[in-house]
């Protein structure tokens, strides 16, 4: 197998004694598009920024293209593109000047690609950044990260201000990168439906931990919502082998809605028999899974 693009080992990060990330381990491989979801304050931005070596981890480590994130060589840095949540555009420069300024730091800078994308994405390159709309700023900020044709592109909430058409074009560009199969993308977004489309893998970050790290398809196949109905009051514990992700009881105590993970059909049948109840099993889309996990 080819070298991992990113490799994270037992990563932890604390600010002033408060743990923001703990025990995060994962790997990103070439061709991956990893979608990162989590509530506000779950630690997504800290995770992305710590992996990129913006500040030292409190424990564990992260490596990018085999180099420790705190001591990356210029050659490795030149293979990374990053779009921060808050853009860092210089207000008095117009788009074209921003692009060429950033490009001057790189040996390889694909001007033709940026000109083409700027046209396709309708980014007005001749206007100063201070006069651009939120969406235009985001698009320009993304262009800045694409100019070096990065092998690892990391985006922190890149699409929040984009209209649906711009978002779709942006997603197609991400897939273009992933089609290369030597390049990888990590991006966090609250627009779960976008991630569901293009991400082959999902990280769900909850309270600083990776609650799920795996294929989008596997996540959908693993999580199910069970509707339990009985003619008598259900016991306090329904007795699933793994603690359910969420559980709600009906007002009369005879019904329950339970979201479970990795629960086989056998276990569902056995549980139904044991509780003398009917259990109906329902699959969930990514957004519902996210909501159930945080219910």
């Amino acid at each position, binding site marked *: 197998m080819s070298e991992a693009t990113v490799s994270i080992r037992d990563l932890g990060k604390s600010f002033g004694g408060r743990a923001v990330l703990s025990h995060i381990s994962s790997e990103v491989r070439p061709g991956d598009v990893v979608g990162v979801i989590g509530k506000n304050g779950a630690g997504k931005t800290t995770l992305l920024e710590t992996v990129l070596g913006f500040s030292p981890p409190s424990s564990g480590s992260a490596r990018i293209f085999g180099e420790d994130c705190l001591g990356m060589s210029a050659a490795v840095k030149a293979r990374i593109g990053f779009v921060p949540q808050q853009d860092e555009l210089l207000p008095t420069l117009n788009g074209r000047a921003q692009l060429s300024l950033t490009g001057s730091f790189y040996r390889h800078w694909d001007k033709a690609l940026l000109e083409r994308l700027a046209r396709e994405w309708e980014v007005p390159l001749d206007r100063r950044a201070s006069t651009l709309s939120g969406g235009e700023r985001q698009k320009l900020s993304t262009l800045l990260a694409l100019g070096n044709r990065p092998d690892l592109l990391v985006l922190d909430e890149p699409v929040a201000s984009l209209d649906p058409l711009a978002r779709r074009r942006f997603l197609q560009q991400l897939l273009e990168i992933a089609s290369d199969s030597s390049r990888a993308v990590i991006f966090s977004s609250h627009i779960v*439906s976008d991630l*569901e489309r293009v991400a082959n893998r999902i990280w769900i970050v909850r309270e600083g931990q990776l609650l799920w790290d795996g294929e989008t*398809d596997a996540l959908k196949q693993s999580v199910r919502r069970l509707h339990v109905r009985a003619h008598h009051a259900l016991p306090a514990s329904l007795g699933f082998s793994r603690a359910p992700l969420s559980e709600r009881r009906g007002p009369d105590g005879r019904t329950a809605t339970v979201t479970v993970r990795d629960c086989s059909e056998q276990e569902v049948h056995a549980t139904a028999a044991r509780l003398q109840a009917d259990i109906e099993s329902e699959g969930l*889309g990514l*957004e519902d899974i996210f909501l159930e996990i945080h219910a």
Partner: protein
Amino acid sequence: MFILDPHSSVPIYQQLVEQVRRLVVGGQLAAGTELPSVREMAQEHTVHPMTISKAYSQLEAEGILERRRGKPMAVAEQKKGHSSRAARLKQLEPQLEQLALSARQLELSAEEVIEQLKKKLGDRS
């Protein structure tokens, strides 16, 4: 040609597998019909290319599609009977797994279960 809903609870690759399977069985996709490349499909539906290639690989394993050197994937010749035997057996796998698990839970021997299964299969023929 295909309708893929990324927001469904059914994984995207599975939706594609099921649609191709149906169209081939139903005769709408004749043997030799070429499918769009992984890249084209991924771009058209804005989904990850791995999702498409996973579906194509599964369809290839089932004998529904065939991979040809330097050419797009195409619908394979569907032979009734022997050649699709493996594919049909594969369809039975979830039930077989379930049966095996139940048999173990009930502490029944393989011989006993096979005996019963043979009777059942015999009844139907």
